[in-house]
């Protein structure tokens, strides 16, 4: 606890230190969780918010963006839950042709009353994080801590210290969950607030699940979201995951962690559609613990205004014979900034690793910036790993070709951009969810065309 006495560097960090002291006893979990929180809090205070001097945060200065620490959202009241329930359908309409089971979070807190808990099939267990921590065993706490993933990351440590809200979802071995589970996150408050959620999804051996995380936000308030999803995928299990973060207001910060570990012959396919909104940091830490597994991390970033979106991936091949794919497309307009950092680490024993990483960006304005930084660290000698990154403008010849055939310039641009970004969504296996994501991307492009 020595670090806690070190002088805080910024007023936001001082506020967080005071908040932690105040909240420490009321945060969910027993002694083991409290120890985990304390250790994480010390680690955070020792490091402070990441700055550009931290290599993994070279393009995103979180310390600067966190000029103040907003008050932490408390669990919503019964009245607030009723109010959110009333606007759920309009704020976050159901996806077309997708009969999903909904898990609703309000300000990061799991609200069973708004969720499809009664429809959950056998073999699917869903609990709030607080309940899970209260009754959970050591294995659950260890799973939540996701040891070895994101170690040393101060933003993740902060999430660990304050984690509340969120849910724990367990899929029993061999269960194929036919209906996608859709986690819908709403914000209730019009006041600026901070949300620290952590959720855990565990797939037993041979289980199959499609998980969609959809965040909605319409209140125009400033938020500081720091949320983590931990995915444990056992032997022969398959998880498809689609994440659509909210477009928060400018001035907001949004750090979204994904911590995934795969056992043998497992499959994980994750897609993120980021449409900006303040500062967004998507960080994925993924590790292959078992052989012959496959993971794909893909996404599209559609950014405009002063959006800042940072996608940082660390993929660790520990076990042999695994395949990793990273595939990202970015469109940046106006003054937007995009970051792609992908690091694939192949440990000495991870022979026959097959890795391929790509990031492609189109800049639509002189003021837009894209930083691409693919990295490979290979310590095994029998692997196939490659990466490619491009930054370009719309092709003038293609644009003229379409215009000369009668398409007005904005429509021609929209058509080419649509073709460019839609291709990333081809990686979503579920057809109806893919169509939904493509429609969301089309909406962004149409709004740009009208502007």
């Amino acid at each position, binding site marked *: 606890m020595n670090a806690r006495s070190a002088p805080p560097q910024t007023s936001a960090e001082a506020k967080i230190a005071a908040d932690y002291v105040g909240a420490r006893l009321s945060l969910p979990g027993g002694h083991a969780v409290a120890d985990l929180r304390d250790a994480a809090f010390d680690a955070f205070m020792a490091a402070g918010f990441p700055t550009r001097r931290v290599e993994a945060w070279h393009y995103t200065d979180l310390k600067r963006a966190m000029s103040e620490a907003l008050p932490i959202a408390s669990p919503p009241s019964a009245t607030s839950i009723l109010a959110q329930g009333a606007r759920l359908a309009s704020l976050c309409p159901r996806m077309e042709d997708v009969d999903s089971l909904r898990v609703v979070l309000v300000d990061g807190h799991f609200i069973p009353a708004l969720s499809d808990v009664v429809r959950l099939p056998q073999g699917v267990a869903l609990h709030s994080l607080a309940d899970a921590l209260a009754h959970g065993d050591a294995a659950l706490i260890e799973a939540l801590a996701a040891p070895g993933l994101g170690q040393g990351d101060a933003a993740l440590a902060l999430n660990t210290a304050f984690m509340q809200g969120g849910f724990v979802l367990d899929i029993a071995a061999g269960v194929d969950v036919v209906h996608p589970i859709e986690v819908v996150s709403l914000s209730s408050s019009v006041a600026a607030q901070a949300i620290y959620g952590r959720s855990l999804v565990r797939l037993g051996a041979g289980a199959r699940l499609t998980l969609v995380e959809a965040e909605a936000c319409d209140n125009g308030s400033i938020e500081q979201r720091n949320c983590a999803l931990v995915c444990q995928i056992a032997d022969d299990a398959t998880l498809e995951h689609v994440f659509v973060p909210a477009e928060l207001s400018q001035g907001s910060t949004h750090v979204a962690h994904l911590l995934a570990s795969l056992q043998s012959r497992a499959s994980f396919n994750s897609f993120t559609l980021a449409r900006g909104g303040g500062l967004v940091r998507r960080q994925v830490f993924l590790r292959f613990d078992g052989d012959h597994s496959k993971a794909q991390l893909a996404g599209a970033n559609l950014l405009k205004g002063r959006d800042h979106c940072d996608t940082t991936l660390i993929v660790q091949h520990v076990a042999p014979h695994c395949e990793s794919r990273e595939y990202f497309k970015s469109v940046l307009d106006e003054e937007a900034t995009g970051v792609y950092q992908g690091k694939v680490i192949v440990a000495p024993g991870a022979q026959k690793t097959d890795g391929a990483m790509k990031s492609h960006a189109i800049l639509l304005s002189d003021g837009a910036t894209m930083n691409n930084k693919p990295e490979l660290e290979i310590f095994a000698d029998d692997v196939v790993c490659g990466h490619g990154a491009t930054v370009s403008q719309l092709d003038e010849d293609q644009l003229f070709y379409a215009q000369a055939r009668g398409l007005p*310039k904005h*429509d021609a641009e929209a058509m080419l951009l649509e073709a460019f970004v839609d291709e990333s969504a081809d990686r979503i296996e579920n057809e109806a969810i893919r169509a939904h994501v493509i429609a969301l991307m089309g909406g962004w492009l149409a709004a740009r065309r009208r502007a």
Partner: protein
Amino acid sequence: MLEIRNLHAEIDGKKIINGLSLTVNDGEIAAIMGPNGSGKSTLSYVISGREGYTVTDGEILLDGANLLEMDASVRAAKGVFLAFQYPLEIPGVTTMTFLKACMNAQRKARGEAEFSTPDFMKRVRAGAEKLGVPQDMLRRALNVGFSGGEKKRMEVLQMSLLEPTFAILDETDSGLDIDALRIVADGVNALRDPKRSFLVITHYQRLLDYIVPDTVHVMSKGRIVKTGGKELALELEANGYRDFVGEAA
């Protein structure tokens, strides 16, 4: 009718079109021949409205309307069509999607009702059949992986569907073998119409054996230096451009 009067145009400060005048009457096929670098492709771009070219003097009128005041898509809706020397590949956009978007954009610009999907499909299928374009090509991304001949055939299909009043064929013969050339030329000839005129840009006389022009113009250093009938093309084939290029100097 297309009328170009005393056209001067440049790109990046470099003068390419240098006082060019040319009239193509309704129903006429005019051929422009000239050596490399004479400004033939630039002329096609300036007529069709490509950005980046600055017209410093002169005018281009299509049926009396000043094309230079319109952007490329408006010119297309007005009836200008450019068949590209190297048709562009558009990955991620199927040929069908592209055709429908272009046809309906033009109709919308002219204040006409857009085609319904069945109506559109019927037209495309019929047009494709006439040109021997296989249906599966229409479902593939536009021009992606098409051979040189297939790309040119696709250009002619687009031309037939968009029904321009003034079509420019820019080096349509390049990259085509004789069989492909004949198919493309047949497609163009089928579109001959008293109300439609063509400007055929070519290096070689060969294309003009298949698309027989009414007039032949020799271009050099950004102007028309000689105008004649179709026999002028044969003369050029025999003697080269030497005799005419000198006149422009």
